[in-house]
Every structure is written in C-alpha cells, then in structure tokens.
C-alpha cells in the first residue's frame, strides 16, 4: 500500500503528465492560429471547426475505408493544405484590407457553415474510432499514460520543429517572417505577399489538420467539438504572443497544465474557468503575450 505522501506525489505527477500531453496538442492547434494571426492580422474564428473537420475526415477514412488515423494522416495533411489555400484564395484574399470586424465576421460565417454542415450530415452524435493502432497505456508504477497521447505529443513536437526550421532557414520561411513584421516593406523588397498569404493559410490549416487527426485517436468526434478548442487556442496564442512559434508552444503547455492542475485540485467542472481567467489576466497586464512577434 502506498503512503499518503507518496500517493499525492504520484497523483501530482500524473496530473502534470496529463497537462503536458494535452498541452502539446493545444500547442499544435494554437500554432496554426498564431501563424495566420501573426502574418495577416486575421483571427480565424473557424479554427476549431477546421479541427473538427479534420477529426471527421479521419473518422470517415476509418469507417468507410478502414484506414487508421495514423495511415490517413498524410492524406489529411494534403487535403487540409489545399483547404487552407482555398480559404485564402476564394474568401480571405478579398478581405485583406478590410476592417477587423469584417474579417471576424467572415471567419465566423465560415465557422457556422463548416460546423453546421457537418452537424446536418452527421447529426450531433458523438463518434469514436474503435480499435485504433494506438491503444493501451504505458504504466510506470501508479502512473498510466495512454500511448495515443504520447504519439500525439511526438507528432506535435515533430510538426512544430519542422515548422520552426522552415520559418527560420528556408527562403520562403524568411519571407513569411518578413511579411509578418512589415507587409509593405516586404512587398517593396520583392516578396510576393499574395503567395506568402497563401502559404501561411495552407500551413496554418495543415497544422490544425494534423491536430484534428491526432485528436480523433483518443477523443470523441462530434460536430460541435470545435467550440471549446478554439477558445483554448485563443488563450494559448495570447499567452505566448501571436505570430511566435515558441510562444504558441509555451502557451499551449501552460494552458494544458493550468487546465489539468485546476481540474484535479479545485474542481473538474471549473477547469476551463482557470484557463479563461489566466487568459483575461494576461490580456489585462501583458496584451502582447510573453513572446513577441517572431
């Protein structure tokens, strides 16, 4: 039998591990939002619904073609890259110089169309991918860690590192950062800003596509799932500072930890209250977040 103290410690360790695991996923969701926010000053209110759509794609591939989410992941990345391009090409491109409210309304309209489109086709039921490749848990003394979540964290880390390297060392990546810093100057230096916007939307939506697919391996899939995640993504992005890769990672991890610790030690029903309270406090005292723009 474990002593009370030891029990508490392993419980704490479990909670922290849960926080880090879910935080990695939040970081991956936040990074796409942060990229679009930073480069174009557009807050994508439909971000959570793209996430939901990705989870549904993964579910559809599983139920109609028998493909495991891990196998359909590359396919979904390509699909979501194109969806991102399409969003910019057909809708957002026309709104580049519009006031904030117009872009918010446009992404909100997109969000309604995506969310309730899936709602009508698939009904509001909760679905689950049964028997995925990733199942079971790792057990270390009394701590248990689901394998699906470990793999999700790894995928998130790989994606984030690749994205970071892309932004840091490639020519296109540098052009993206230049555009984020000053659109006009970048344009005058010969950066094809239109193309950069296209790439940014593509990358941002592809990231959320990866996040949605990984989420579907251990979470329910249902049409209204985006609502909670988009708010958490907002909180992560604001905490880290928009347009910054390590900011989004920091934000995601901190939000994951706050949520799990608050849920475990105060009240599970109020776990998101802490997240939003921290979010408002950060906005009040440090509106630019802890890491600036790139």
């Amino acid at each position, binding site marked *: 039998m474990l002593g009370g103290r030891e029990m508490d410690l392993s419980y704490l360790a479990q909670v922290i591990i849960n926080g880090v695991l879910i935080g990695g996923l939040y970081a991956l969701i936040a990074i796409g939002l942060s990229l679009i926010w930073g480069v174009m000053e557009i*807050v994508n209110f439909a971000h959570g619904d793209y996430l939901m759509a990705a989870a549904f794609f993964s579910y559809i591939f599983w139920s109609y073609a028998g493909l495991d989410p891990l196998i359909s992941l590359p396919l979904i990345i390509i699909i979501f890259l194109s969806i991102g391009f399409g969003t910019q090409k057909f809708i957002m491109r026309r709104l580049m110089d519009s006031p904030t409210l117009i872009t918010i*309304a446009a992404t909100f309209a997109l969000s309604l169309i995506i969310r309730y489109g899936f*709602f009508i086709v698939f009904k509001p039921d909760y679905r689950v991918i049964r028997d995925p490749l990733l199942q079971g848990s790792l057990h270390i003394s009394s701590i248990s860690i689901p394998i699906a979540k470990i793999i999700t964290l790894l995928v998130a880390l790989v994606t984030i590192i690749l994205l970071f390297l892309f932004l840091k060392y490639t020519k296109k990546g540098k052009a993206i950062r230049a555009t984020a810093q000053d659109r006009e100057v970048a344009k005058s230096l010969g950066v094809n800003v239109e193309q950069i916007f296209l790439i940014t939307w593509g990358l941002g939506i592809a990231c959320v596509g990866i996040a949605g697919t990984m989420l579907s391996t251990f979470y329910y899939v249902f049409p209204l799932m985006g609502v909670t995640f988009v708010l958490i993504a907002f909180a992560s992005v604001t905490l880290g500072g928009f347009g910054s890769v390590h900011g989004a990672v920091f934000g995601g991890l901190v939000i994951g930890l706050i949520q799990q610790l608050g849920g475990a030690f105060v009240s599970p029903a109020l776990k998101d*209250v802490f997240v*939003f309270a921290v979010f408002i406090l950060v*906005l009040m005292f440090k*509106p630019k977040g802890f890491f600036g723009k790139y």
Partner: protein
Amino acid sequence: MKNGMNFFKKGKWLFLILIALVILPNFLKDEPYILHVFIMTFVYLSLAQAWNLIGGYAGQISFANHAFFAIGAYTSTMLLIHLNLTPWIGLFAGVVIAMCIAYLLGSQLLHLKGHYFAVATIAFAEILKLIFLSWKGVGAAYGLSLPLKMPSFYYLMWTSKLPYYYLFLIVAITSTILIYTIDRSKGGMYFRSIKQDEDGAEHRGIDTSYYKLLAFMISAGICAMIGTFYAQYILYICPRSCIDIMMSTKCILIVLFGGLGTVVGPVLGACILIPLGEYTRIKLGGGGQGWDYIIYGILILIIVLYRPEGIYSILRRYKKNVQKMLRG
C-alpha cells in the same frame, strides 16, 4: 422646408408600419407560432441595437451581449423566486448589476485593440457560463423555472402571447429610438469618430476611454433589460440556452447584414434574418436544426464579400434613384 417634407414622408411610412404592427396581432390570436416569431424578431432587434451601439458606432467588437442578457435574466428570476419581488424591481437590479460588471470589465479591457477585445469578451462570457453551469445556487445545469404567479402586469406574466408581443414591440421601439437619439447627439458623433480613428479622436480632445466605457455600459444595460423580459416570457432559463455565444453572434450578424452603425440597419437585419431562420426551422422540422445557421453563414459571407456596408446601403442607393426618377 424640403427636409420637413422628407421627414413627413418618412414619418408617414413609419406611422403606417406602426399602426399595422399594433393591429396585426389581433388577427393572429390563434397563431401562437407566428406571434412567437414576431416576439423573437423584436428580442433580437433590441439586442442587435444594443450591439450596434458598442460595435457599430463605437467600433468595439464585443461578444459579451449574451453574458449581460443572462445577468439580467438570472437577477430578476432569483429575486422573484427567493424574495417574491416584482420583475420590475428585478429588471432595475439586473440592469444596475450588468452596468457595474460592464464598468469593471470595460475599464480593464477596453484599451485592447480589435481582436484582443473580442476574444477577451468571449473569455469573460465563457467564464460566466461555466460558473453558472456548476453553481448550485442558480440551478446549475438544470436551470431555473420561474414560479407561476397570477397573470398581471405587476408580475409581468400573462397566459396569452399577446401582451408579450406588445411588451417586446415597445422594447424594440424604445431601443431603436434610443439609438436614433444617440445617433443624432454629440455622443454619437464621438462614438463614430472613435471607430474611425481612435488616436485621432484622442488628439481632438475626446475622452475616448470614457466614451467607449459609456457605450459598453449602455449596451450592457439594454441587454440585461431584455434578459429580464425574455425570462418572463419563456419562464425557464438555463446556462445552455441563455449564455449561448450564438446569441451574440446572431446580433453581430444582424447588424452587419443590415448596416453597421446605422439606426435602420439592425431593424432591417432582424426583420429579415430572424423570420428566415425560424421559417427554415419549421419548414425542415426538427431535423432542420442547423440549416438556419448555414443560411446565416452563407448570407454573411455574401454580404462581407460583396457589400460590407450592409443591405441598407443598397436600399439607400435604390431610394435615391427612385427620387431622381420621380423628380424627372
């Protein structure tokens, strides 16, 4: 003189519409559903006017309308249940509480620009919703049923929908007149200048933070008032139906659709979008849930892409052409 004539013409039309709105429901006594659609249109018209003030005139994108609405609904309901107080006092208390919260929130958050203020208000509303969902004192997730009283003006409860129809008609007209008055006042000019160029307005000596706060508080007060009336009409409130972000979203969509920062815009928007949404829902039955939102989404996308000034601007241009034709 010409202005006077114009006003008379405009006034005549308004007067006719008003008379029709007053007489009409007497023929619809046996059609409670149609009366309900009218009532919901009035509710959203007033809520949209409240949002128009902070969002359309002062240019601050708030997603907290539904939070203040819920504060009004919950305050009067709690007072009615526990102290047996008339909702009229509850209404007053709700408005005061909502305005105080708006003051606290606004004084801390209104300095944020654009997106940041929007997401901060979303976070605030979400916190309120989560707290109400788990707070046993206000019924938690089960919500509160209003105790049934003798049908009377004092308890704001009636057995037929007709008195509610007139109540919400008056609320809608009052809020529209309020926005009209503000539109014509010095304050309205200040709000518009803040929206156009906040730094510029500050340099011209306008106390921008004061005026933004003022708009936010008035807007919150109107929402709380409608919240009380709405609770009295529906007789049941719960966090999932009252503190629903879709309510604020609908208000924004209505204002955008009709015309941002105009008195007529929200009226047009509400009169078109709300009956349209309700109509699709009955046409498609229970399974049609969701279609109304898709139609809203598509309409907004079209408006935003092709006519971001809203449909009022189309009517205005059309009206000018007609006047030109009439003049020959």
